[in-house]
C-alpha cells in the first residue's frame, strides 16, 4: 500500500487510520516522500513546515491511541494556499511584499480545520495576491500542470490544484474570487468548489476583493470535497459577511439527494469561443444526466456578456483599497532607498508588488476616482445586481446550471502571460458565480486528445452546496476520470 498511499483519498485514508492500517505520521511521511519525488516538476509548494506537520500527525496518532477521534479528517494532511493565515507560518501571498511575513494568528477556516484534527500541510503557490489565472504571477516560482508540465495549472490557486492532482496532498484549501478554485481544478483534473459567499468565514483570508472572495476545498473526489467543506463552513462572528445558516451533513446528503434533477443549460456558455473538445465533453456530461432521468432545459443568463467587465471593475476597486495596507511601514517589504515617508510608499510598493498587482491597483484606483466613480464602479454594481438576478431567476426554474468551467483546457506556460485581456477571459464562465454570490463546483468530465483534463461546472442556488455536491457525486460515480492520475515519473 505504501507506494500508492499518496493517491489514496481522504475518505480512504480516514478508513485506514480507523482500522489502524496506517498512522497519520506514516501518511505525512509518505507525502514528504512524494513531494521530494515530484516537486521539482510540479512546484506546487512555496514552503513546507514538515516538522510541524509531523508533530501534529503524531498528536493525532496519540489521540487515536487514547480512543479519541475529532472527526473524519483527524490526522489527514490538508494543503493550504499561501493566502490563508496559519499561526506561526509564513503568509506571503506569493508576493515579495510579504516575503518575510509570519502570521501571528489563525484564519477561522484554519482554526476550524485544526479543531477537527486535520494537519495543515505546506504553503501552496498562487498568483501574487490571488491575481491571475495561471499561477505565473507568483513572485517566487512557476507551478506546472501535473498532466503536462509545459502547461500552467490554472490560477490563482494553482498550487492547491496541482498538489492534489500530483498526489502531494489528498486535500487542499484555496480561495476563489473570480474562478480561482474552479478554473485550476478544471485544468488539473480535480474537484474544486467555491461555496456561496458567506458560507465560509473570510477571517484570515488575505483580501483581494472582499465582496467576491470565498475559501473552498480541492479534492480528488466529491466526497472528499464534502468532508473538507464540512470542516470549514459555518458562521463566524469575526466576519460580518458570514451567514447564519444551518450546515447540513454534506457527506450524508450525497447519497440522500437522488434527483432526478432539473438542470439548466445557459446558451451564453456554449458556442463561439469555447474549445470544441471542451464543448464535446460538457455536452456528453449533459447527456449523462439526461440518461439518468434528469430534465434538461435551456435557461438564459442574458447579462453574462458583462460579467468580465463588471468583475474587473469591482474586483480591482476593492483590491486597490485592500492592498493599500502594504506600504513599507509595518510588516511588509520596506525599501532601503526611501528618502521620506512618501518616497517609502512609492519605492516599497514599486519593489514589493509584481506587474499584474500594480495593473489591478491602478485600474481599481481609477474606477473609484472622483469623476469616474459613477461611470464605472456604480454602474458595475448595478450590472452586478442584474447578473445575480439572472442566476436567481434561472435557479427558480432549475435545480442547477451546467456549464464548462473554462473555455479551453490548460494553456502553455508563457502563452498568455503578456496579454492580460486574453488571460482575463479564462474567468469568463466562473466570475459571474462570484458576482452572483452563488456556489459552484468543478469536477473532471473528460480529457482532451492531448491528455489535458476538462472540467464541468455546476452552479446552484445560494447555500445549496449539498445539492451541487450530490449532482456532482452522481456523475463521478458513473465515471472514472477521478481515478486517473498524471504520469509524473
Amino acid at each position: 500500500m505504501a507506494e500508492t498511499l499518496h493517491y489514496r483519498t481522504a475518505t480512504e485514508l480516514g478508513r485506514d487510520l480507523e482500522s489502524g492500517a496506517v498512522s497519520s505520521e506514516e501518511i505525512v511521511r509518505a507525502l514528504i516522500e512524494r513531494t521530494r519525488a515530484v516537486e521539482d516538476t510540479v512546484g506546487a509548494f512555496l514552503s513546507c513546515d514538515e516538522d510541524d506537520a509531523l508533530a501534529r500527525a503524531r498528536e493525532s496518532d496519540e489521540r487515536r491511541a487514547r480512543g479519541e477521534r475529532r472527526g473524519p479528517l483527524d490526522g489527514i494532511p490538508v494543503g493550504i494556499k499561501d493566502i490563508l493565515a496559519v499561526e506561526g507560518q509564513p503568509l506571503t501571498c506569493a508576493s515579495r511584499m510579504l516575503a518575510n511575513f509570519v502570521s501571528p494568528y489563525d484564519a477561522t477556516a484554519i482554526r476550524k480545520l485544526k479543531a477537527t484534527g486535520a494537519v495543515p500541510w505546506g504553503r501552496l503557490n498562487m498568483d501574487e495576491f490571488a491575481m491571475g489565472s495561471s499561477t505565473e504571477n507568483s513572485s517566487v516560482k512557476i507551478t506546472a500542470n501535473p498532466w503536462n508540465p509545459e502547461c500552467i495549472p490554472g490560477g490563482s490557486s494553482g498550487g492547491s490544484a496541482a498538489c492534489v492532482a500530483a498526489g502531494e496532498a489528498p486535500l487542499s484549501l484555496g480561495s476563489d474570487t473570480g474562478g480561482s478554485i474552479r478554473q485550476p481544478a478544471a485544468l488539473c483534473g480535480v474537484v474544486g468548489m467555491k461555496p456561496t459567499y458567506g458560507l465560509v468565514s473570510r477571517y484570515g483570508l488575505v483580501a483581494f476583493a472582499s465582496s467576491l472572495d470565498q475559501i473552498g476545498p480541492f479534492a480528488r473526489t466529491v466526497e472528499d470535497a464534502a468532508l473538507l467543506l464540512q470542516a470549514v463552513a459555518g458562521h463566524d462572528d469575526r466576519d460580518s459577511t458570514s451567514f447564519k445558516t444551518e450546515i447540513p451533513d454534506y457527506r450524508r446528503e450525497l447519497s440522500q439527494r437522488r434527483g432526478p434533477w432539473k438542470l439548466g443549460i445557459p446558451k451564453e456558455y456554449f458556442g463561439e469561443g469555447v474549445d470544441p473538445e471542451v464543448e464535446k465533453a460538457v455536452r456528453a456530461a449533459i447527456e449523462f444526466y439526461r440518461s439518468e432521468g434528469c430534465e434538461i432545459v435551456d435557461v438564459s443568463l442574458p447579462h453574462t456578456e458583462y460579467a468580465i467587465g463588471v468583475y474587473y471593475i469591482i474586483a480591482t476597486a476593492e483590491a486597490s483599497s485592500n492592498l493599500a495596507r502594504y506600504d513599507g511601514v509595518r510588516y511588509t517589504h520596506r525599501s532601503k532607498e526611501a528618502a521620506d515617508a512618501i518616497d517609502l510608499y512609492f519605492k516599497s510598493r514599486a519593489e514589493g508588488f509584481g506587474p499584474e498587482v500594480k495593473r489591478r491597483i491602478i485600474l481599481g484606483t481609477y474606477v473609484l476616482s472622483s469623476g469616474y466613480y459613477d461611470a464605472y464602479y456604480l454602474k458595475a454594481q448595478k450590472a452586478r445586481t442584474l447578473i445575480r438576478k439572472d442566476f436567481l431567476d434561472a435557479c427558480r426554474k432549475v435545480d442547477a446550471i451546467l456549464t464548462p468551467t473554462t473555455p479551453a483546457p490548460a494553456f502553455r506556460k508563457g502563452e498568455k502571460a503578456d496579454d492580460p485581456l486574453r488571460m482575463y477571459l479564462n474567468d469568463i464562465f466562473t466570475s459571474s458565480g462570484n458576482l452572483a454570490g452563488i456556489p459552484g463546483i468543478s469536477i473532471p468530465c473528460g480529457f482532451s486528445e492531448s491528455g489535458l483534463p476538462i472540467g464541468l461546472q455546476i452552479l446552484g442556488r445560494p447555500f445549496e452546496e449539498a445539492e451541487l455536491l450530490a449532482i456532482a457525486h452522481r456523475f463521478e460515480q458513473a465515471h472514472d476520470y477521478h481515478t486517473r492520475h498524471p504520469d509524473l515519473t
Partner: protein
Amino acid sequence: MEYEAVIGLEVHVQIKTESKMFTRAPAGYGHEPNTLTDPVVLGMPGTLPVMNKRAIDQIIKAGLMLGCDIAPVCKWDRKNYFYPDSPKNYQISQYDRPICIGGQLEIELPGPSRNVMGEHKFIHLTRIHLEEDVGKLNHVENDSLVDYNRAGTPLMEIVSEPDMHSGEEAYAYLTALRQIMVQGGISDCDMEKGQLRCDANISVRPKGVDTLGVKVELKNLNSISGVRNGIDYEIKRQIKTIQSGGQVVQETRRWDAEAGAATLMRTKEMAHDYRYFPDPDLMPVRVDQDWLQNLRATLPELPFERQRRYFDSFDLPYTVTSVLVPDRRLAEFFEEAVDECGEPKAVANWIANDLLRELSAGGIGIEDSKLRPAHIAGLVKLVKDGAISNNIAKEVFIAMFESGRRPEEIVEEKGLKQSSDTGELAGICNEVIGANPKSVEDYKAGKQNAINFLKGQVMKATKGKANPHIVDQILREELDKLA
C-alpha cells in the same frame, strides 16, 4: 465696509467604549505604545472588522441629545488615503449615509457680566457620523515612531452648519457640546488627550450679503481657547486680505497656538481624492424603534433644560444654576438632597458655597467626597427645625465633610444642639439684662439696636446653642416688663 464672518465647525469626539470599534482589543489612553493592539487594529493581512454595537449605542445617544434624526439604515464606507498613522491606509467612515442627520445645539453667549445670563441661540447641525480613529506619530530626532494604541477607537464627527459668526460663538458651541457629551457619558472630551478635536471652516463676507465667501479650513484647534483665538485670528486675516485688495484662497491652514498664528498646510489643488466606496467587509446597520426607545430611556436631561427647571421649580438665581448645571454629578447631588429635605435654595447654597470650597481645598471631586446628599439634607433640616443655628451648621458641615458622619450624630456628640428651653433661656436672659444696665437703658430710650448686643451676650453665654428667635422673643418680653 463692515464684514461678517461665517463659521462652521467639524468636531471629532472620541467615544468612550471598553473595546475598539471593530475588534475586542481594549481602548484607552496613556498606555505603553502599541499595547492596545491586535491583528485587526494593526491591519494585518486577512483581518476583518466587526462592528462594536456599544459604539453605535453611544453615537445614537449623542444624536438623540442633539435632536438629530436617526437614520433607519446607515452604512460604512472606506476613505482611502495614505498616512503612516493609518494601519490600513483607509479609514472606515460614513460617507453618504451617516447615522445622525440634522439636529441643533443650544449655546449661551457671555452675558454683560458673570452674574447675568447671556443670549441663547441654536446652532444647526448638518450630520454626525461614526468613524475609526487613527494612530499617532511621534517624531524623535530623525525618526518617526508610530503608536497604534489610539487606532480603531470609535470617533464621531459632528458637523455644524455655517451658523456661527465669531470665535466667541465657536467657543460657546464647544463648551455646550462638551457638557452634553460628558453628561451623556458619551465621551470625557478631554482635549489634552485628544478626545475632542476641532476644525473650523471660516469665510468672511460684507455684512448684509447672503452668499458665502471663499472658505478656509483651520486645523489643529486643540484647546477650547485655541478655537476662539485661532478663529478670531483667521477672521482678521481674511478681512485684512480683502481690505488690502487681495483675495482669500480656498486652502487648509494649521493653527499654532504657541505662535498665535496659522500657517498654510495645503491648497485646494493638493486636496485628496478619498475614493470613498462602501466597505464590503461590513453590513449596513438597521436601527429599529425598540433600539431607539431603549436608548432614549437612558438619556440625561440636557444642561440648559435642567437650568430652566431650576429657575422655574426652585427659583434659584442664575449664578447658582451656572455652578450646578455644568456638572451633572453636582446637579444630581443637589437634586438628591432636595428630594430628601425639600429646601432647594438652602441646599444649593450649601453646595455652591461650602461644598465646592471644601472640594477644591481638598483637591477632590464630588464622587470622592465622603459627604453625600443625605448629609446636606439632614443639615438643612436641622437648621430649619431650629435644632441648630446657621453658625453651628457651618461647624457641623466641616465635621461632616471630614468624617462622613451624619449631622445628627455630630450635633449630638458635640452637644451642639440649640437650646429652645424657654425656662432655661429666660434665666440667662435675665442675668444678661441684669449685668448690662446701659444697654437696657438704651433700649428703653428707643434704640432698638441695643437688643442685638444683649442677644449676643446670651448667645455667648450659651456657646451659640440658643435659638436666636426664641432669645429675641424672651428679651423683648423681659425688657418690656421693665418698662
